[in-house]
């Protein structure tokens, strides 16, 4: 039986190896951003003693007269039209409470859900009692943000055939700031798996259904592809790369020479992500 031993060693931070510096104005809480009172204050700042002071650690963004500080990592902040993947935490009277990695649990109203059979009718008392039959605590769903309440809580809807309860697959939780905004968040990768990039940082990897009409049953056949994809996503996230279909695909291809379990080792992770970075740069430039 082969055993592997690893020794801890101080590694150079990746940013040094990239050899570039940032031009952004970086602040930490307590820093004065400006003493000019003509600016409007946005997120991440507060007014104290005639000065605009930062309240989070991040980079300052200025749009005309609005100054805000964008933190490195925050919880998901809902915007109308976002696709999210969430987990049901509670079944309440006429709605479900969904955990979406945000400040407050999101809400999925019974009236925002498609009834089986696709009927459009008023939800009755029987529907309320049958709620647990549709979605239980612990189920995963994909949905779209319908509205945002004043306190920041988000209201979801699944009024389309592409949203709904998710079946067999793997969930990866990342920071929402690392998911790139695109036109579509449902991707079918050529390697045989599909991926849903939720704006809230929940990424769902599942096997591409062979035929759309066929009933999805049984167990996942191509587990290896899915585990490899999952490890690739984790390595991209550790190296703080934006997640979108191209970057995930390039990372997957760069990881093929390695074994799946080796991808999570720090030095191999760096190597794979460096290669992905280079390929993306070549593609753009």
């Amino acid at each position: 039986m082969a055993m592997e031993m690893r020794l801890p060693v101080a590694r150079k931070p990746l940013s040094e190896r990239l050899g570039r510096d940032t031009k952004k104005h970086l602040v930490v809480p307590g820093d004065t951003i400006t003493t000019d009172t003509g600016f409007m204050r946005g997120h991440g700042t507060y007014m104290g003693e005639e000065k605009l002071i930062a309240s989070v650690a991040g980079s300052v963004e200025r749009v005309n007269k609005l100054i805000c500080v964008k933190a490195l990592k925050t919880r998901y902040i809902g915007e109308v039209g976002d696709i999210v993947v969430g987990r049901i935490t509670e079944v309440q009277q006429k709605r479900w409470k969904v955990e979406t990695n945000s400040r407050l649990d999101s809400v999925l109203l019974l009236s925002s859900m498609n009834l089986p059979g696709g009927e459009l009718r008023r939800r009755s008392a029987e529907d309320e009692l049958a709620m647990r039959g549709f979605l239980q605590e612990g189920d995963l769903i994909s949905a779209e943000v319908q509205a945002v309440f004043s306190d920041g809580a988000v209201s979801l809807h699944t009024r389309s055939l592409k949203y709904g309860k998710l079946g067999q697959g793997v969930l990866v939780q990342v920071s929402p700031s690392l998911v790139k905004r695109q036109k579509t968040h449902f991707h079918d990768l050529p390697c045989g798996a599909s991926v849903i990039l939720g704006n809230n940082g929940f990424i769902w990897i599942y096997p591409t259904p062979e035929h759309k009409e066929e009933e999805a049953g049984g167990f996942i056949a191509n587990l290896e592809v899915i585990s490899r994809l999952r490890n690739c996503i984790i390595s991209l996230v550790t190296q703080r790369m934006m997640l979108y279909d191209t970057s995930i695909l390039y990372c997957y291809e760069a990881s093929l020479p390695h074994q799946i379990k080796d991808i999570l080792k720090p030095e191999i992770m760096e190597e794979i992500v460096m290669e992905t970075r280079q390929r993306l740069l070549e593609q753009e430039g």
Partner: protein
Amino acid sequence: MAGLELLSDQGYRVDGRRAGELRKIQARMGVFAQADGSAYIEQGNTKALAVVYGPHEASGRAGWGIVWPWELRGSRAERWLGDLRGNGRRASVYTADAQHRISLGVNIRGSRARALPDRALVNCQYSSATFSTGERKRRPHGDRKSCEMGLQLRQTFEAAILTQLHPRSQIDIYVQVLQADGGTYAACVNAATLAVLDAGIPMRDFVCACSAGFVDGTALADLSHVEEAAGGPQLALALLPASGQIALLEMDARLHEDHLERVLEAAAQAARDVHTLLDRVVRQHVREASILLGD
């Protein structure tokens, strides 16, 4: 210990430091990938780990929110979970692993009565590992000292975090002391500050803490365990450096009021020195993340 000089004639302490000198501080942010924010700090031989979850839906978490990996002894964790389930409260157990670390947490969803309508609830738990002191501790958390520390941490952070921005939500701060060599409150506060910053929760300013004592007419900053055990007066101060406001000041010993100002000033100066160091750590972390993310 007979003949132990806390302060020698030349002005050196037991470990060779000067009166106002701090111990070596090393800190790192973002040590746990699965938590919203995390940090690790070493102040001399005192080592503390802080983990922050939040802001999230106020869920009425009970006092023991987290079981740290080294506390996991299969039968004990199972017995504990059995107790919770037997009480009729729903308990969900989640495990997550990133970078080969495993963390087990117990989330107890109870009544929503604890949620505050206009601001966020700050919930702190202090726990010290059984191997953290010279003699093995039997109860890592739940005893009186841990509860008191948790309460003090909560007061400190309620003063610093801008809770008005997150109504009806809850911020959990869990601090674990891995090695206690004096100044545990200060190390916990410093670690928790870094963890809260890592989580992106808006704060008024850093919260920097340090302990101070008084020996032979001189105020000493950053006490080690030997100096604390000697029995002199000890003061713990948590400061918001930019404005100079005090978040928490704690002392449970007798000190003549003439000396108070000097000791307070020594603690404040030490806290400002800690701020310089933590500031550097945070800036470095932010800069590195910013470079990796690209423009």
